[in-house]
């Protein structure tokens, strides 16, 4: 046994140990075993995929791991998850930080995301408690918002009753001021009508929001991302706040009405002014509501209805606002060919608001398509949805449903490529509609054809 051989044996064993240690270190390093850490605790109702050793991230940054999961003593209790977090991130973990169980991609493993707290909140103590949020909790949160909406609706009903009561009393007892009552009555009736519309819109928004929540909690779309996006989170919580503010304003107007009725014999001008104010309040409320409707619609577009065009790169309908779409129509790189179809011949609306194609609709669509099919099938086609009935939210939803129904029919019956057949719910306004009043109720099939091809007219490439 020569000594060089002995050296090789030493190198073999030593090198092997070193290599093994490198592996140990890599694992230990990832698990932050060699850095200082502190402990936090969060409770979760559901710990799917979480186990001891599960990664903890702080705003996406690897921050530590789960050290223990304490099982609740009784059903309905919450699982207490203990986590070890890197000390150098301590300053970001505040008492108002929220921990949530998320999943890394479609196939990825579960991890716990801690959202950095706000500047004003104190740092969480070692071993301290964080709020634990899971998907279900977000749903709960929005459920609360929904409750608020219901409250709004109830308040409006109450307001209406109050006013009706007041004015019917007014009509009976005060005959000498008939003229004035007529004037006031007209205004009040107008306010009442507008209030009813507002209530409608509120209910629509409420339903839309609920729809989003259900889809998110069912795992559609980018599951979990809902919570991590602060803007969206604020939207949802803010929505409830807005509705409450509106509610207060409406309450104020109701009180004003009572004052008007109470002081009807007062100076005419004062009563008139109050009525105008009341009208303004309701108008503002309506504006706020339409903002909400748009927000909800934006959420649906952004998070849930990503689709046909997004990957193909022609243009992306999902991230496109109605305004941007209108600009696209004006873009001279394409020549949009439009065929307008009226809702009353195309659709049947079920009692639950569902939209289906009516009996004669297929013929009508085929007739329309026979014109468009003269152009290459590779041309993108957009089904624009229009609806005039109801509040803004209802209009949006009806427009969306109509466009979707027609798009579905086109894809199935005419073998249109789904990625080249988009939908665009627009609402009531249609500047160049054949009705001439700038509104449309129905759909428009818009083909974005190559201007050159249109210039040449139907050619050999056309498919009948």
């Amino acid at each position: 046994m020569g000594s060089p051989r002995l050296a090789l044996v030493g190198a073999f064993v030593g090198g092997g140990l070193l290599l093994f240690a490198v592996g140990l270190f890599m694992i230990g390093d990832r698990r932050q075993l060699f850095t200082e850490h502190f402990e936090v605790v969060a409770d979760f109702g559901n710990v799917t995929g979480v186990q001891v050793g599960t990664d903890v991230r702080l705003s996406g940054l690897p921050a530590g791991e789960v050290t223990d999961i304490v099982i609740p003593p009784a059903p309905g209790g919450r699982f207490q998850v203990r986590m070890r977090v890197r000390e150098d991130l301590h300053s970001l973990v505040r008492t108002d930080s929220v921990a949530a169980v998320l999943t890394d991609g479609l196939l990825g493993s579960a991890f716990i995301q801690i959202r950095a707290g706000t500047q004003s909140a104190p740092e969480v103590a070692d071993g301290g408690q964080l709020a634990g949020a899971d998907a279900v909790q977000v749903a709960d949160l929005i459920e609360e918002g929904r409750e608020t909406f219901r409250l709004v609706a109830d308040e409006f009903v109450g307001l209406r009753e109050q006013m009706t009561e007041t004015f019917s009393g007014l009509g009976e007892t005060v005959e000498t001021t008939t003229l004035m009552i007529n004037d006031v009555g007209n205004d009040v009736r107008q306010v009442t009508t507008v209030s009813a519309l507002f209530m409608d819109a509120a209910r629509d928004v409420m339903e839309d929001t609920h729809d989003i929540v259900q889809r998110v909690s069912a795992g559609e779309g980018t599951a979990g991302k809902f919570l991590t996006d602060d803007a969206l989170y604020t939207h949802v919580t803010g929505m409830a706040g807005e509705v409450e503010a509106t509610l207060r304003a409406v309450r104020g107007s109701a009180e004003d009405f009572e004052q008007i009725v109470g002081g009807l014999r007062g100076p005419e001008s004062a009563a008139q002014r109050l009525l105008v104010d009341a009208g303004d309040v309701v108008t503002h409320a309506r504006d706020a509501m339409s903002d909400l409707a748009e927000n909800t619609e934006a959420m649906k577009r952004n998070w849930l209805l990503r689709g046909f065009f997004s990957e193909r790169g022609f243009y992306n309908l999902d991230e496109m606002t109605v305004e941007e779409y209108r600009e696209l129509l004006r873009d001279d790189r394409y020549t949009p060919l439009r065929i307008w179809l009226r809702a009353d011949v195309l659709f049947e609306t079920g009692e639950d608001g569902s939209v289906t194609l009516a009996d004669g609709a297929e013929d009508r669509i085929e007739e329309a398509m026979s014109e468009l099919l003269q152009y290459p099938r590779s041309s993108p086609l957009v089904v624009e949805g229009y609806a005039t009935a109801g509040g803004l939210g209802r209009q949006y939803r009806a427009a969306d449903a109509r466009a979707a129904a027609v798009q579905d029919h086109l894809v199935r019956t005419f073998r249109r490529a789904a990625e080249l057949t988009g939908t665009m719910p627009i609402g009531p306004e249609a500047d160049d509609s054949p009705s001439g009043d700038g509104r449309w109720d129905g759909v428009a099939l818009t083909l974005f054809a190559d201007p050159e091809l249109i210039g040449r007219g139907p050619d050999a490439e056309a498919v009948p």
Partner: protein
Amino acid sequence: MDLLIAPLSRAGHAVAFAGRAILEMFRPPFELKETARQLYEVGWRSLPLIAVSGFAVGIVLSMHTRSSLERFGAEALIPAALMLALVRETGPLIVGLLVAGRVGAGFGAELGAMKVTEQIDALEAVAVDSFKFLVVTRTVACMLAMPVLTTVANFTGIVGGWAAETAISGMSFEAYFRSAFSVVGFADYIPGTIKTIVFGFIIAITASYLGVHTRGGTQGVGYSATRSVVAASILLITANVVLVRLIFFLFPESAG
């Protein structure tokens, strides 16, 4: 009756042989020089075989995991999936079987030849405990070499996986390396490596037992070598089943 008793008594004999090896391992004198010499033969000289095999297996595993994970759009998990497969099972088993082939045959033939040419008697005649000198040294060397060789195979496997990956996606080695370790836990890494010590014991004991009990001259030597490889491989693979179960029991995290 004899049909049943003969194999049973042989099995009992082999178990006693293994038990004696374990006892003698801890009883002086320790044949350190001879152990080092065997470690050189078993460990150092197996390195090229193990390193190249690990590299090749890494490439193949990478290609397979890519084709499966690509379907789910989970290409980012390729290094981790490869590393997990290597560290938990593929590395230890491949190294075990390669060593069973190379070293098992070597032991079986060498000890068989020593037996039939009376070298084992000669050892005893010069007052050397042949069991300690031949069997225990080889067993210890094998038990030391296996985890080292497995670690080497794991690492060359990663390099192979990276080579296959970078050819497609141009990923840097550091990124690949870090990503590979992103899901591997101690419970995957340590038991997977430690169990190869048991593999080493099985290989050395099986081959030594068959070698030392060689009969029938030169022909018997070849027979012992072949039998050593077959028996060691089968024992190793079946023992692995028990070991995996045991590891899951001792380290529940590794079952995830």
